């Protein structure tokens, strides 16, 4: 009996010790970690748009964040978007609530500073206030509309889906016609050497330039990549050659990774899902905005 008590006491003490070490470490590192993730996301965004490294970004380039919320009130669900208002930063934001059939329920101006909109806490509170009492709002996802001198040039969106083991977290860029500009893997836990090859250029580059029609029916084929195509995917040939191959394979399926068909398929299906859903949503949103003559910054 006395043994048992000492064991319990000692185990508890060691657990508490371990917990406090880990907790302290977390407190000291969490800010730096968050900052790193944010920096990485920014970097990935610009890289996807083709401004990697030292390449100069034009001043006319602007990014507009759309936040999508699921609003449920009185047993009915609808989709709410927080959109940046028309005239620069002072215009505040606009909360547009659209029902599942694509009809506008309400649009409310939201007074929110640009800095607060980036933080989840104050943003959620503002949305809650805008949605009215009795409604519950849940953050769904966020999309970035990239404009260059007022013209939309791309959409950036994140997406998470099931991989072979855990979730694969992607950042995608599509052009205004929903053709894929490219994607970057932000986070994954696939097997090193097998499924982890999804981060390699020769796999990712297969998706580049796929038109929306091809993405809608995309699948993977279990076949080795032809040698000349592989060279083009790894960038071992000239720029025109790469574009020629991209054109030639643009309607074709993705070549699966050797030994990791499931991971490759998960990515292909994930991209398909994210892009098709997004294309539908942005169509609905654009139609509503046009019908109601709502002015936004993009």
């Amino acid at each position, binding site marked *: 009996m006395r043994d048992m008590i000492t064991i319990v006491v*000692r185990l508890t003490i060691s657990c508490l010790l371990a917990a406090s070490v880990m907790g302290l*470490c977390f407190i000291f*590192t969490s800010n*730096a*970690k968050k900052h790193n993730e944010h920096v990485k996301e920014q970097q990935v965004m610009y890289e996807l748009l083709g401004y990697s490294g030292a390449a100069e970004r034009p001043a006319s380039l602007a990014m507009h964040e759309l936040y999508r919320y699921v609003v449920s009130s009185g047993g009915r669900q609808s989709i709410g978007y927080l959109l940046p208002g028309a005239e620069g930063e002072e215009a505040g934001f606009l909360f547009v609530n659209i029902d599942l059939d694509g009809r506008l329920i309400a649009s409310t101006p939201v007074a929110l500073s640009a800095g607060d909109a980036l933080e989840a806490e104050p943003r959620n509170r503002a949305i809650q206030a805008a949605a009215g009492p009795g409604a519950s709002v849940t953050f769904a996802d966020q999309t970035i509309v990239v404009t260059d001198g007022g013209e939309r040039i791309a959409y950036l969106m994140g997406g998470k889906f099931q991989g072979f083991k855990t979730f694969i977290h992607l950042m995608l860029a599509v052009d205004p016609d929903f053709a894929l500009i490219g994607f970057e893997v932000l986070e994954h836990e696939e097997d090193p*050497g*097998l499924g982890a090859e999804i981060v390699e250029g020769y796999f990712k580059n297969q998706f580049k330039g796929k038109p929306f029609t091809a993405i809608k029916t995309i699948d993977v084929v279990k076949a080795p990549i032809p040698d000349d195509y592989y060279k083009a995917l790894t960038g071992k040939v000239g720029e025109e050659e790469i574009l020629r191959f991209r054109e030639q394979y643009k309607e074709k399926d993705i070549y699966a990774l*050797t*030994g990791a068909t499931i991971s490759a398929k998960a990515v292909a299906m994930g991209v398909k899902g994210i892009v098709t859903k997004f294309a539908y949503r942005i169509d609905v949103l654009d139609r509503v905005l046009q019908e109601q003559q709502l002015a936004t910054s993009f």
Partner: protein
Amino acid sequence: MTNDKSPLQLISRGILSENPIFKLALSMCPAVGISTTVMNGILLGTAVLFVQVFSSVTISVFKNYIHPRIRIPTYTLTIATWVTVIDLVLAAYMPEAYAKMGIFVKLIVAFAIITMRLEMFACKESVNDSFWDGLGMGLGFMVGMVAIGLVRELLGSGAILGYDVLGFKPLLFFILPSAGFFVVGLMMAFFNWIEIYYKRRRGVQ
């Protein structure tokens, strides 16, 4: 029980005569599963080295306060704490390295070699010796992983450290997990053969 070996002997013991992978045959899962490239071996080896050294020292410091009945849970707790700390610190201050090592670091909690070294050595010996033993075992593990990775990467993808050496891929089989068993087994045999050969020659003289 005291230890009469010098730091250098402790380190060389970890790398050669008691190499975790080739001699003790511990932590075979990572040796088989992850050693597909040299880089993976170096990254995982570095991570294991740190966790092993930190855990060995911690257990050695607290060895008189650990109840003998709950030593294994305590070891696991210690290892898990250090793995978490290293994971957090890497993510915060070395994002570049973390992007490559992140997947491996979390795996280390379950490595048999670390628990075994704590049980066999650190809980009996002085802090100083435990440090050198941890360093030796960590280095031994790294050497083993890099050696296996070298063979598998060269034969599987025709490259070393990602640089194309052969210009073609001789046998894709070597990258697949099953080949890990063959490579580890053959290398074990090779190292044993060297040892036997060496001992015999010394015996003759």
